[in-house]
């Protein structure tokens, strides 16, 4: 039986006693199961990252991803060498740009039978297979960039060319002529150069120095083909 030395319920005793002070006097006569929870206040850094995104709300996830996409678009517009940007790759930007470019490069009316189907799929195939080929080439040359990172960079750097396509379509609404063509040529050349600069700012660093030209040359070809498609586009 337990010895209850002092009575805690007695309001008369005004002396404050430390908590659990009397429990040391207790002896237990029967087995009472004890259960409880222990929370460890310190966590390793990896665990912290996990739990912070494991239980976040859906809205947070969406906003986080949208911000990441927006940041990458900004980086393409103002290319600057940044290692941290490349670490979080995502393929949303390339998808959006590819779809936009392919939509703008269609010819023919929307409701006819031959409604630009082959050209639409053609743009898709060129962009995605071109990017995959360049990535394989750069990996075979010994670059230390990962597959999806490279796809991400190449896809995002199509942004200037998409802008060029938009401008060309607007220019083509005016009357055709040599001036029309010169304007379009100028715009396409400027945007092409911009794409090359933006992508080499990210990709060239991953290559050993004597192989930089070998790695950059397929990128040059890739953007050249896309610029050619843009320049020679004429709506029927």
């Amino acid at each position: 039986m337990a010895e209850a030395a002092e009575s805690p319920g007695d309001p008369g005793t005004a002396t404050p006693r430390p908590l659990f002070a009397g429990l040391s006097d207790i002896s237990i006569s029967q087995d009472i199961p004890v259960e409880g929870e222990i929370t460890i206040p310190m966590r390793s850094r990896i665990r912290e990252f996990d739990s912070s995104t494991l239980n976040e709300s859906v809205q947070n996830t969406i906003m986080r991803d949208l911000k990441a996409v927006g940041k990458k678009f900004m980086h393409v517009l103002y290319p600057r060498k940044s290692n941290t940007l490349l670490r979080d790759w995502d393929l949303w930007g390339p998808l959006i740009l590819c779809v936009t470019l392919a939509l703008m490069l269609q010819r023919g009316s929307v409701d006819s039978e031959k409604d630009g189907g082959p050209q639409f799929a053609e743009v898709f195939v060129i962009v995605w297979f071109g990017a995959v080929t360049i990535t394989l080439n750069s990996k075979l040359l010994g670059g230390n960039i990962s597959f999806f990172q490279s796809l991400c960079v190449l896809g995002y750097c199509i942004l200037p060319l998409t802008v060029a396509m938009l401008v060309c379509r607007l220019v083509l609404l005016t009357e055709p002529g040599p001036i029309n063509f010169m304007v379009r040529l100028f715009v396409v050349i400027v945007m092409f150069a911009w794409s090359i600069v933006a992508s080499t700012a990210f990709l060239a660093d991953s290559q050993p120095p004597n192989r930089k030209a070998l790695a950059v040359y397929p990128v040059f070809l890739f953007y050249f083909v896309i610029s050619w498609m843009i320049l020679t586009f004429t709506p029927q």
Partner: protein
Amino acid sequence: MHADVNCGQQWRCPQRARGRGTLPSPAPARAAEPTSPARDCALGPARPAPTGDRSGGRTEGLRFRPHRASSRSCPPGIPALPQREALVDDTEDVSLDFGNEEELAFRKAKIRHPVATFFHLFFRVSATITYVGCDWFSRSFVGCFVTVLLLLSFDFWSVKNVTGRLLVGLRWWNQIDEDGKSHWIFEARKVSPNTVAATEAEARVFWLGLIICPMIWIVFFFSSLFSLKLKWLALVIAGISLQAANLYGYVLCKMGGESDISKVTASFLSQTVLQTACPRDFQKPGLEGLEIHKY
């Protein structure tokens, strides 16, 4: 704190944190309190104060309750109540967590995340339906292509980032460290008393949706290949790769450390086959014994 509850003079009220644990409690001399016998003896109404305390709001975060004696310490002549009722009283007395009723309802529900379950299936099924029915919806190849592609992308994103972690607690992602090396990380949430495990209905919906849809797209691949509608091939290949990537990622999460996939599939198949054949044999042993510890 002690002054809030009238425990009676001879009793040392044990403190109980979070309502889940039991600290060793003193067994006071019963004979000294003839007017308030032990609660789990059959004289119900004469209960000591802490029970009545329940309606009057909560103390700072601790609950006090009198000693819960076993049946043999009831005064002679008074039969003891069965153990379960006493336990029910105990848990009622010490419900500390605010919103406990919602949590109980949450735990008991068969589908805890109805919106996530809906969206898990919605994008996949609508992508499939749009692909199949595109000839009826509109004659435009481009519109149909873009719609199906967008639906497939949204499906990939939502299954990877949202429904996997909500429905079954699995997650996979790619991380690139400072050296530029990429690591694929697969993780499964551990089931602890803090977190709830996935319900069976949700897990079933998740895995069936994950497995059946890529198979449907493989059928589409062959049908478009052999009927020579090659312009759809790019779309079908995109669909297969996106959905197969999710399936592969989650299978790897589920497998955890086991690297031998044939063993895992064999055990999974045998479990499901035997379970549907004789479900009663597969109830966890000792389940009745576990009921006592339900909170």
